[in-house]
């Protein structure tokens, strides 16, 4: 069987692998639409402290008041019907620490997605979020003994209010943008992680986010704090069933890497193509800290996501390594932001994108060097590959430099698969499909090699599927 015969099209495979959905049998499902009553209900159900309840209400007012973003894709954004979304769905009564306690249909879902298997094999901890709530959560005992906190955000708020209050909405203020305000008003679930001083967590912690219901809005909230000299690798993955009407995923992720800490945050975003993925991610990197966003965007209808790192302390280093794949009907508007707010900080952004059929991928980035940040260095590289006559690629980088002893570099290239390379590989006996796949694999290699093995294999497989039958 030739490569192109293997799979007829990505959507068929998606339906089989991730696009299935369970019957909707929920503990609690809020009516559609967002207003102060819904926000009040969420806060009451969660039995939250007063400051959080107030923050939610204020955030909702800010959400109403803020205009829609004017960048990205205004046309698609205008399609979001905020009144046709469920802002909160609680699938089951209590969170489980054992897969056996998870209701059968939900457990099956995660079995099909391979989560329990992955947990046994190579993870230090797992949270599995289904709709608005984390339904399962575990952490390896040895990590727990070292004082590593890894739980869902709601439990974090309950059990460690002093830490949460100190950092919550401090990295990404509620007012940052319309969707960060919406998340602050309606947030539920997400991960809370604290790594104590000097503790190096050498195996990844993972969260898996699943949307099941139609017209669902998922607003998880994640906060990771790596204390001085510690290190952590966090991985998140996500999928949803394919419905004909749209769902909204709007997360807020805040990272704090204190002096000398190292955080790597890896995302493999594979939402179905009816999901709007509008996410705000930002990290603070203190003195000598390192923060890396490894960001893969394969799914969704429209993604607008620009992981940011504020380099606050001297010699902090930030990296964003991203790959975007935009197939039929998709727009991946992704990028990165680096704010050099301290001297001798360094950063690197590598962005790779593939646009296929009428897909569109855009790199939108900002590198800012504030006055007083001497001796900074930053390098941005964007590579775009176009496959198909109607594919589109955009590059919108911004550089804003207020210091003179700073080196800022930006480079971008856009091209189709080079004929010479194809010709060379075919002259060595590869058919055109295989030759093209090999070139694409080479193109995304810098990204894939940063992933844990299991993810790299999965990503390669995904890209291979997406590439099927793309011989032009």
């Amino acid at each position, binding site marked *: 069987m030739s490569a192109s015969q293997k799979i007829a099209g990505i959507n068929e495979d998606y339906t089989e692998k991730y696009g299935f959905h369970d019957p909707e049998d929920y503990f609690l499902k809020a009516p559609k639409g967002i207003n102060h009553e819904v926000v009040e209900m969420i806060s009451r159900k969660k039995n939250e402290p007063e400051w959080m309840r107030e923050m939610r209400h204020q955030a909702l007012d800010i959400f109403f008041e803020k205009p829609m973003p004017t960048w990205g894709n205004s046309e698609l954004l205008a399609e979001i019907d905020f009144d046709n979304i469920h802002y909160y769905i609680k699938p089951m009564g209590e969170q489980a620490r054992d897969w056996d306690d998870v209701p059968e249909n939900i457990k099956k879902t995660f079995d099909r997605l391979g989560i329990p298997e992955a947990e046994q094999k190579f993870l230090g901890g797992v949270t599995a979020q289904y709709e608005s709530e984390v339904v399962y959560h575990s952490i390896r005992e040895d990590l727990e003994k070292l004082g590593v906190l890894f739980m869902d955000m709601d439990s974090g708020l309950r059990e460690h209010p002093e830490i949460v209050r100190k950092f919550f909405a401090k990295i990404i203020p509620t007012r940052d943008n319309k969707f960060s305000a919406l998340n602050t008003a309606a947030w539920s679930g997400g991960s809370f992680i604290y790594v104590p001083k000097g503790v190096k967590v050498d195996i990844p912690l993972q969260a898996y986010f699943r949307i099941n219901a139609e017209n669902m809005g998922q607003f998880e909230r994640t906060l990771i704090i790596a204390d001085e000299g510690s290190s952590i690798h966090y991985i998140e993955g996500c999928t949803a069933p394919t419905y004909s009407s749209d769902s909204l995923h709007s997360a807020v992720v805040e990272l704090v890497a204190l002096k000398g800490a190292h955080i790597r945050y890896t995302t493999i975003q594979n939402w179905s193509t009816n999901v709007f993925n509008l996410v705000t991610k930002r990290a603070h990197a203190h003195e000598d800290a390192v923060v890396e966003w490894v960001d893969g965007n394969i799914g969704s209808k429209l993604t607008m996501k620009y992981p940011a790192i504020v380099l606050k302390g001297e010699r902090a280093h930030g990296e964003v390594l991203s790959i975007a794949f935009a197939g039929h009907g998709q727009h991946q508007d992704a990028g990165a932001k680096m704010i050099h707010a301290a001297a001798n900080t360094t950063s690197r952004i590598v962005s790779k994108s593939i646009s296929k059929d009428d897909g569109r991928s855009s790199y939108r980035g900002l590198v800012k060097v504030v006055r007083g940040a001497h001796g900074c260095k930053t390098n941005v590289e964007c590579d775009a590959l176009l496959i*198909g006559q109607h594919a589109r690629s955009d590059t919108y980088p911004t550089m804003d430099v207020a210091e003179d002893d700073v080196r800022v570099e930006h480079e971008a290239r856009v091209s189709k698969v080079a004929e010479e390379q194809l010709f060379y590989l075919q002259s060595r006996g590869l058919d055109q499909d295989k030759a093209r796949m090999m070139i694409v694999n080479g193109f995304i290699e810098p990204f894939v090699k940063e992933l844990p093995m299991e993810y790299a294999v999965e990503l390669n497989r995904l890209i291979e599927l997406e590439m099927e039958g793309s011989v032009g």
Partner: protein
Amino acid sequence: MADMTREATLADPRPALSGADLSELCDQLDQVETARQARRESLSRYAQAGFPDRVEHLWRFTNPEHLLPSDLAPTVLSGAGVKVTDLPAVPEASATVDLWAGRQPVVQIGEGQKKAELTIGPLDGSMAAGTVDEQDAPSALFRHLNSAAWNTGLQIDVAAGAVLSGPVVVRVHAQGPALLPRILFRAGGGAEATLVEQHVDGGSETHVIGRSDIVAGTGARVRHVVLQTWQDGTRGHLTVQSRAGRDADLLTVFATFGGERVKMELTADLQGEGARSRMIGVALGGENQRFDHHTRHRHLAGRTWSDIDFKSVGAGRSRSSYTGLIRIEENAPVSEAYQVNRNLLLSSQSRADAIPELEILNEDVSCSHGATVAPVDPDQLFYLESRGLGSDDALRLVVRGFLEKTLQSIPESLRPGFESLVEDRLGRLREDS
């Protein structure tokens, strides 16, 4: 859901302009009825155009209010009080033209130039096809303002197949409170011609809103040079709109040295198959100068090629901003486009911003851009000084080295004049750094 649209509450700062103001200007410039009609249409577009939005990249770095004249009264537009002087023709030019606010162009044809090949005179103003303003562009306000109220206009037509004896040199004198020059340069099929615009004079009282249209016919070779050496304090907005027909070859060389607040927008539309456009630009800023450059290469046909190389050097407290767009349309296959912007900062107070943008709607392209912002390499200075050069000379040499490759790509015939301007400006920058 609450209404999320916010209404503009601030008063619109665009200067008032009325039909009556314009008719006086039209009388003074002896305009035909169709030209008057064209101005009236532009006037209503000016009144309706949105005020440039500072959220847009194009206006992020410059406040449009700083560039608009405060008063467009008839006496201002007619250039009352502007002193016109007799100036000698440029010796090697095929024609030398002087433009002043409110005056018809003063044209001196060079001796060696065949009359039949070069038609040059006041702008008709009926807005010949191909120079219609874009409606929705972020800078539409400035375009419509010039179309409505240009107060000195020049039209140059180079006959098909003609090869001009020398460049057409146009000296645009920034005098009086408001100069709105408009130049239409058309080169017929296969023609070879060079237009040199020298933007001179100026001062803290002067605002310039300029517009030049370059139309290169099939297979024409057009060189367009814009040298801006305004006096301190001048504020100006210059628009260059070029169109290249089938297999036409365009070169635009621009130098921005003078003025206090300057915004320049250059667009080359590659309309015909096989059209080519190269832009080469140099900006040297010092003191409190603010330069804002925007270039656009739009590939509208197949097998088109474009390249832009823009370099800026900043001393003092100057700021250079650059936004550049390459757009390749879906029906423009087998196109190539390149863009480089490099910024050298000589002082700790100078700033540079760069936004190079790509919009590629066709797969069969080769496209790249690069941008850098960097200080003078102290190792280079140290090396030169250790070889006995004074620190001034060492710095000059480093800056020359930074600009060298760009200067070398300027055609031989244009280079000496350009280089001496650069040297002159550098000399003054050094005192400033």
